[in-house]
């Protein structure tokens, strides 16, 4: 795999071995609640969650199925709205943002990696990776291609640019998904069980890739996982149970 040299190193305790000054909060959640309401049942998915994720951190979120991990990740990623509480990104509450502004924030600041990859099967690997840049008017077609090629290079798939997702293995697809998340050069990557559909070898490969991005490129990563072994590799583990943060 062709990992590039670190461009920034906001947090790398392994490299320095000394305590660093507190990094600025990238995400701050205050009293977040998410309630799903039907005619007969009210389900509390998140119950008064308070959480701060600092710039450069690699945080994993763990907990049993249905405990609200993915809901939390969706709220952090501005894919869903909380029922109550406040989400702040880089010191600014996002509740007052319009849909267009939220779309802009997702496009500029956040990259997503999903458990089931969510690649667009009708598009080639390169077209898939270009997707975030497609929604940036300032990026020309040529620059889009270059940046997509660079992102694919980082995940070791530069030889597969013209393939289609159906022609790739699960691990390769997830690497394409990571390249897509990276193409927009986001400050934050949100990964929802990125190794959940992969065997252990491929899972390790993807995990190494995410660790590399965090340690050598300074990308903040929040990862939902069921895998204790992988969670232990991250800097901080947050545990959830029945919609509440337990540690």
């Amino acid at each position, binding site marked *: 795999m062709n990992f590039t040299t670190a461009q920034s190193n906001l947090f790398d305790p392994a490299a320095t071995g000394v305590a660093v000054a507190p990094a600025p909060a990238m995400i701050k959640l205050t009293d977040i609640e998410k309630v799903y309401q039907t005619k007969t049942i009210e389900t509390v998915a998140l119950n008064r969650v308070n959480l701060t994720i600092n710039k450069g951190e690699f945080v994993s979120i763990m907990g049993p199925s249905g405990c609200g991990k993915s809901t939390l990740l*969706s709220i952090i*990623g501005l*894919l*869903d*709205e909380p029922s109550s509480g406040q989400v702040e990104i880089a010191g600014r509450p996002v509740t007052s943002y319009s*849909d*267009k502004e939220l*779309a*802009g924030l*997702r*496009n*500029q600041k956040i*990259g*997503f990696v*999903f458990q089931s990859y*969510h*690649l*667009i099967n*009708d*598009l080639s690997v390169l*077209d898939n990776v*270009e*997707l*975030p840049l*497609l*929604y*940036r008017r300032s990026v020309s077609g040529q620059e889009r291609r270059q940046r997509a090629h660079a992102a694919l290079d980082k995940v070791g798939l530069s030889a597969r640019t013209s393939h289609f997702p159906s022609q790739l293995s699960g691990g390769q697809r997830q690497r394409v998904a990571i390249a*897509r998340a990276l193409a*927009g050069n986001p400050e934050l990557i949100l990964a929802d069980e990125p190794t959940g559909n992969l065997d252990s070898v491929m899972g390790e490969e993807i995990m190494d890739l995410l660790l590399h991005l965090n340690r050598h490129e300074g990308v903040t990563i929040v990862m939902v996982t069921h895998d204790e072994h992988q969670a232990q590799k991250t800097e901080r583990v947050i545990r959830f149970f029945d919609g509440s943060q337990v540690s």
Partner: protein
Amino acid sequence: MLLSYLKIAWKVLLRRKFFTFISLFGISFTLMVLLVVVALFDHTVGAHAPESRLDRMTFVQLLHIKYKNGGNQNSPLSYYLLDTYVRPLRTPEKVTIYSNFHSTPSYVGNSRLDLDLKYTDEVFWQILDFTFREGKPYTPAEVKSAARVAVINQSTARKYFGTDTGVVGRTIEINQTNYRVLGVVDNVPAMRLSSYADVWVPITTSPDDLRRVQLTGDFSAIIMAKTAGDVPAMQAEFDQMARRVPLDDPKGMERLDLHADQLLASYSRQLMNPLTDYASDGLTILYAILSGIALLFMLLPALNLVNINVSRIMDRSSEIGVRKAFGATGGTLIGQFLVENIFLTAIGGLLGLLLAYVALQLIDGAQILAYAHFELNWRIFGWALLATLFFGVLSGVYPAFKMSRLQPVQALKGGSK
């Protein structure tokens, strides 16, 4: 971005071939039928030679007599009525009087050739712009002297003389009467009832007694205004005149309806008389009915498209979710689906054009209607395509709008709320 949308659109069309086929079939078949119907309509009432100055022409084809006992009679007019009341009108530039065409026997060797014969005055050739392949029409003097002269069409020249050139001056025998051929003109389609015939001869050679005082007969008239703008004034003068025409039988007859209508209006007055009782030309009602039928006809593929698009777009909710997650706004997504729909309807439109061309060629080739020549009407094609695009856009906007308003997380889960 547009290229990316088109790529996706093409892939989606190929991915769901059956739905694509149904969509394209709906669009193209509808357009084809519309275009063929419009071509037939245009062929019948559009401005084409020799009736190319239709905007200045009005037609007096039928006289309606309402009887006191409730009876009705629709009949062509007498020469006397047209010559006495219509020809002296002051507003028109020209008035021509001519008979209906009648099948008349002729013989080439031992085989019978039925020719449609029409009696006309000399003005007929001035109002209608026939294309003379050779020769010329008959003169006022020839009409006045009831000369046995004839203008024949190209088809008759070929059938009777075996050639359509060099026949001027030769003799054609029709119904045991010899006529000297003065000219050969291009064939006129049979649907153009006023100008169509195989052979045209001076009205004075008609076996009818032209001087007989009566209302009904076998004749019609075309009245041509100096300009298109003069038509209403000409019609007003005609209407004034029509009120002065005395009833043949005041005891039995209640009233006469006599009008000088433009070509389409002359047909619609007859068609719509159950609704209008000849009081108006019924053109507005006819247009409303035709537009309603066309709209209903286009609504079917439009509803089909809406249905298919809803299912097609819902199928792609995951893609919509991903696009939203990576920064697509609702407006961008609606734009994407609009491009896809316009792409689909444009393909359907082109197929429709092709099908209509083939269908019109087949109808032309089958010669169902004598001398018919159908042409695609580009103006109507433009309108029909625009209407289909409008429905295509409308059918795409609704589901796209619905999906674009979903939270990305719901779209990623498949659009269920």
